[in-house]
């Protein structure tokens, strides 16, 4: 479980907390000056951003736990739909970037098998997709 916490980067968590505190002060000051509409305009997009960030982090943690639990890589890839290969590749590179030995060992193992199955195009699509990052 300690390895999964590595996914929650310390810099991002601290930045999020700092932003929450700053936004809370902004919203409080707007409410004090009887500007509920303006406070909503600040609050809603900020909350959406926070929830999407938290959701992304949770998904990464859940995927990491699932990846570490895999014993039969060949069986996994046989049963996985080809449309999920690209998504799996993105999460593998995310896992490889953590630097944790166990995680990297597992991700390298799966990466080799996935590349054999899906080809180099899978790698290039995960590199080229700058919109849907994980």
């Amino acid at each position, binding site marked *: 479980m300690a390895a999964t916490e590595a996914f929650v980067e310390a810099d991002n968590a601290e930045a999020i907390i700092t932003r929450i505190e700053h936004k809370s002060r902004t919203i409080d000051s707007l409410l004090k000056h009887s500007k509920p509409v303006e406070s909503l305009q600040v609050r809603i997009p900020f909350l959406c951003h926070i929830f999407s960030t938290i959701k992304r982090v949770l998904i990464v943690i859940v995927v990491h736990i699932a990846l570490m639990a895999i014993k039969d890589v060949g069986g996994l890839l046989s049963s996985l739909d080809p449309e999920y290969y690209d998504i799996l590749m993105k999460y593998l590179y995310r896992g*490889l*970037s953590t630097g944790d030995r166990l995680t990297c060992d597992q991700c390298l193992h799966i990466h080799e098998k996935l590349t054999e199955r899906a080809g180099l195009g899978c790698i290039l699509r995960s590199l080229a997709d700058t919109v849907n990052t994980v």
Partner: protein
Amino acid sequence: MANTLRLYLTCIRNTLEAAMCLQNFPCQEVERHNKPEVELKTSPELLLNPVLICRNEAEKCLIETSINSLRISLKVKQADELENILTKKFLRFLSMRAEAFQVLRRKPVQGYDISFLITNYHYEDMQKHKLIDFIVQFMEDIDKEISELKMSVNTRGRLVATEFLKQFI
């Protein structure tokens, strides 16, 4: 251990094979200039996602790609202070002779020991699989070189100490 190294090098090889699709692309900002976009990073649409491949906490490889250039930065395993010094000296020696290597960067990227910069011109002049073989072979050989240097330093130190202390016997 050997299996992890094999998997690590295979992953890097596959990633380089996929990422090394370079073409000539003149600078969008300055007329008649042609610059490696991976170094400038002024146009986000020309850059691909950077990829960090770690073998463990100490060894990692950063691959940054753009439309006309590719940068590979390596962090070599350094177990102790002596290896740290030897690695720094040896890689600095190589970096100062970067022109002879052509694809070597004079200064490594911050946080890494050595960096390679491959542009579309190198890609046109040299064969892609040979370039990738060179990078992977370099990664294999660098560990051996550092180990040999360390052994040589320890051997020389032992000989010198033995000769010096003989006078006190």
